[in-house]
């Protein structure tokens, strides 16, 4: 099988304050900063959905290192992306989660369906480094 290289890597900053977006091949990496709550959840949802539609992104990695708080709206966005990606053969990965945010996510059962990683590098490596 021939190898095909895609060089679509780039880093941009958009309307979501404190969100870094990086797309490499079909993988979208988002570094979030601040609270993931009702105020920011919609922006995050649009950002991910656009990349799924336009660039056929199938893997979304969320780096939550700088997220201080997540509420039900934030959890809803993550669960919604999971629900959208799985039928397309994609998946969502979460990295660098602060302990108190992980506690909230754990109560909502996210670790049961979504893989959590210590670092971005671990998340990029399929099936390795899961907590």
């Amino acid at each position, binding site marked *: 099988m021939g190898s095909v290289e895609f060089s679509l890597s780039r880093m941009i900053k958009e309307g979501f304050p404190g969100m870094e977006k990086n797309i490499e091949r079909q993988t979208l990496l988002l570094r979030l900063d601040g609270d993931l709550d009702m105020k920011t959840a919609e922006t995050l949802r649009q950002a991910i959905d656009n990349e799924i539609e336009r660039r056929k992104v199938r893997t979304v990695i969320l780096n939550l290192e700088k997220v201080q708080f997540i*509420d039900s709206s934030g*959890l809803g966005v993550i669960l*919604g992306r999971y629900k959208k990606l799985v039928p397309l053969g994609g998946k969502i990965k979460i990295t660098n989660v602060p302990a108190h945010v992980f506690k909230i996510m754990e*109560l909502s059962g996210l670790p049961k369906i979504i893989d959590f990683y210590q670092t971005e590098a671990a998340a990029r490596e399929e099936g390795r480094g899961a907590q």
Partner: protein
Amino acid sequence: MADWATLKIEQSVRKQRVSFQTLALSLFLGVVLARGAVLNIYPFGLALGAALILKGGKGAALGLLGIIAGTLTLHDLPLALEITIVLVLLSLLAPLIRRGRHAPVFQSLTVTALTCLVFALALLRNGADPTAFFSVGVQGVLAGGFSIIYGYALNQEEALWRGEFNREQGMAWLLLLIGAISGLQGLKIAAIDFPVVVLSFFVLFAAGRFGAGTASGVGALLGFLPELNFHVQNLMDAGIFGLAGFCTGAFQRFGKLGIGLAFSAVTLSLTVFLRQEAVYSQLVSSGLGLLLFLLWPEAAPRKDFLKPKPIPEVEATVSKVKVLADIFDQIALSYQAAEAETTTLRPEIPELMNVLVERVCQNCPTIATCWEREFYKTYRYLFDLFSLVETHGKVRVQDLPVEWKRQCGRLKEMLLGIQFIMEQEKNQEAWRRRLAANQEAIARQFQSVSHVIGNLAKELNARHNRQDVKPSNLARRRRHFLDVGVGSFSKSGSGINGDNYASLAFSPSRHAFVICDGMGVGQNAAKMSAMALTLLEQLMNTGFDPVEAVQALNSMLVLRSPEESFVTVDLAILALETDELTFIKAGAVASYIAGPEGIEAFSAGGLPAGILDQIEVPVLETVFKPSQVLVMVSDGIPDAVRDGGDWLKDFLEREQAAGSQELADKIVQEVRRLSGGEIQDDGVVLVVRKNFWNEG
């Protein structure tokens, strides 16, 4: 089957025994009732004769013979003749009387008329005075009236042998007994006074079976009525036996021996004080009555086959309901099978390749070369192309190997065609997955419905067999039994609380408290949580197991609102008859149990309801004692402080509140204080205690 076989054997044995007893009883009653008199008239023999004639059967002839024999013992031949004539006439008219719809009424009227006629004719022949005609009229009326009562008593003969009477049976047999005792008046052999023997026996019998009240009444009636006069002696007898019955009945719980001792003591003392002249005879006769009572067998314990059994209609209904449950199970299995079939129907690469060849290669001039001479080579290239597009999605022609470009002159069209087919296939795959998920959800719901119907069948059967009768007023008592406090608040600037709660008395022995938190805040969250709460309440009240109810709720919410909104469900189920407490948490935050032994938090990582097609619902089981307090909250309460700590646990450790409502209010006050007046989320708190001391 064994029950029914035993019943059949016992019934046949009983039939033989009853047959002999019936003959003996008929003869005995005939003799004694024929002798019975009230105010010097003899209605009892006539009444019994009429009842026996109308009833018919083996005992009738013997009973009639007994009546004639009893009448003869009175040494009054004209009376015996008159009674015999009346009975003969009645026997002749019996077929006509039996034919009518109101046979007992006709019987009574006929007996009255014939008695009056025959006795009046006899009086006319003897030239008696007019007052005698009045006595004849009274005799006729009494004979007619008693014939109905005696007829009823004879038809209920089984009650006599069983020793168990309902009110009507008891009264009928009591009146028959009064006539019998009346007939025994004056019958005395040596020191044995037969009326006293019989009277004593029946007073003891009533005391043993029915207690003080009934025995007292029976004693007074049997003591007074047989002679039906107001002589001092008669009234004294009524008093003695009435009081003896009352005192004896008070010893019912001590069994036959206790009753016997009490009866002996009472009759001895009363006779000594009131009837000193007949002490010996009275004591001998009472003693004989007591001996008969002691020898009389106890009431046979009820056998299993006498218990109420499901009547055929109920059994048929239960059977039909079970079949219905099986049907729903089958439907669920069909859906599961259909789901499996859907997953196996995915087209393979060669099938997709055929579609591509039809579209692109059909008009290509080299089709014969590619697909005939170089089939395997072309097939491999095309297969690799499919694999590449499947793996990488968008692929450009310039990225493809050179030999591929040489192989196919329409590579660009081929690539576009593959990408189009793969995209289409992915969409179809997404729909197939969704269809499979929905089919699975529907299958689960059918299974749950099947369980509910199965439980209904069990409940129907159990209720009919009276195996599981719960007090109906339990639900009413719960407001005294449970001390519940509620507190709530909305996000600053929002007038509507998106969190909802409920207290559900869904089972006679279990009570549920629920908090539902809709995603987000405000009106949409409130609508979502209210809908979830209503559905959950309906499901649980219908008989769904709480875990199945939450799973069914999830399926319903997914089907109703495919967009990404969800509801957290926090369910606490209290067993009211034990200390068991079960938490079911779907995306809900921790609950707390506070008590003298400290605070314990209960949390479980369950996914919320309404977003994924299938969720596993975690269940936590613990003990909840009356000395403890259950605190359930929505996420707005722990999230009032966003430092990752558990402020609520610390608060509960230091806070002492007298009542549930007071504690709920204090928690809400603390949230407001910690939020500095700017509340970030909606919140609900439920505080529950068990109040055993208030029960009742």
